[in-house]
């Protein structure tokens, strides 16, 4: 778990390093649990996620179709809020005014993909049974016979 959290933090620090437009970013799951944040105060990150979850559910309520919301941008005069979602994991980010929307979405989706792509620690494969598992080839025992020449005395 700690390993996963560290990976999310690394992905977020990479994201803010790559995209100077992104001011803050928080990753959270479907239960509203914060997985990683660029905000130093965990309480502020939790509060932000609570409102972001509310924003997502309000946005989903606007459409009657069955198709899920994958990304959104809400632009205000104070700045923009971006949310990208992949399955259960969501990433909410804030920018200043007039961001390069396509570029920000691309960076956010790349970050989310890198978080999702982190594999779980690999388990060691079970040791193979050597003798019992592999069937042996049966080789017919050679009979050694001594032939005598028919004309032998």
């Amino acid at each position, binding site marked *: 778990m700690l390993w996963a959290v560290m990976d999310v933090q690394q992905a977020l620090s990479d994201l803010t390093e790559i995209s100077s437009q992104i001011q803050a970013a928080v990753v959270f799951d479907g239960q509203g649990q914060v997985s990683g944040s660029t905000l130093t105060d965990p309480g502020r990150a939790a509060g932000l996620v609570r409102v972001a979850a509310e924003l997502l559910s309000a946005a989903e309520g606007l459409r009657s179709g069955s198709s899920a919301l994958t990304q959104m941008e809400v632009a205000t*005069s104070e700045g923009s*809020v971006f949310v990208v979602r992949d399955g259960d994991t969501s990433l909410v980010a804030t920018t200043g005014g007039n961001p390069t929307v396509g570029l920000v979405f691309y960076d956010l989706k790349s970050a989310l993909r890198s978080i999702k792509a982190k594999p779980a620690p690999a388990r060691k494969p079970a040791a193979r049974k050597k003798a019992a598992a592999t069937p042996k080839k049966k080789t017919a025992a050679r009979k050694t016979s001594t032939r005598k020449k028919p004309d032998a005395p």
Partner: protein
Amino acid sequence: MRRSLAVLLGIIGGMLAGAAFLRRQAAQRERADLYFEDGSMLSLTNGSPGADRLLPLAREILGKARGT
């Protein structure tokens, strides 16, 4: 004298019109774009019922992110 007053009034009127135009533009820039899994997109401009719900929440998020 009369001519310079007209020029001054013209400049002030132009500035007021420009300010109103910029204000209107800024208000129109407030919007919410929603992208769905099937490739469809919903754009809500300021003043529409959906945007009225989303914009205050977005402002709250921005405030929390900036610690205000």
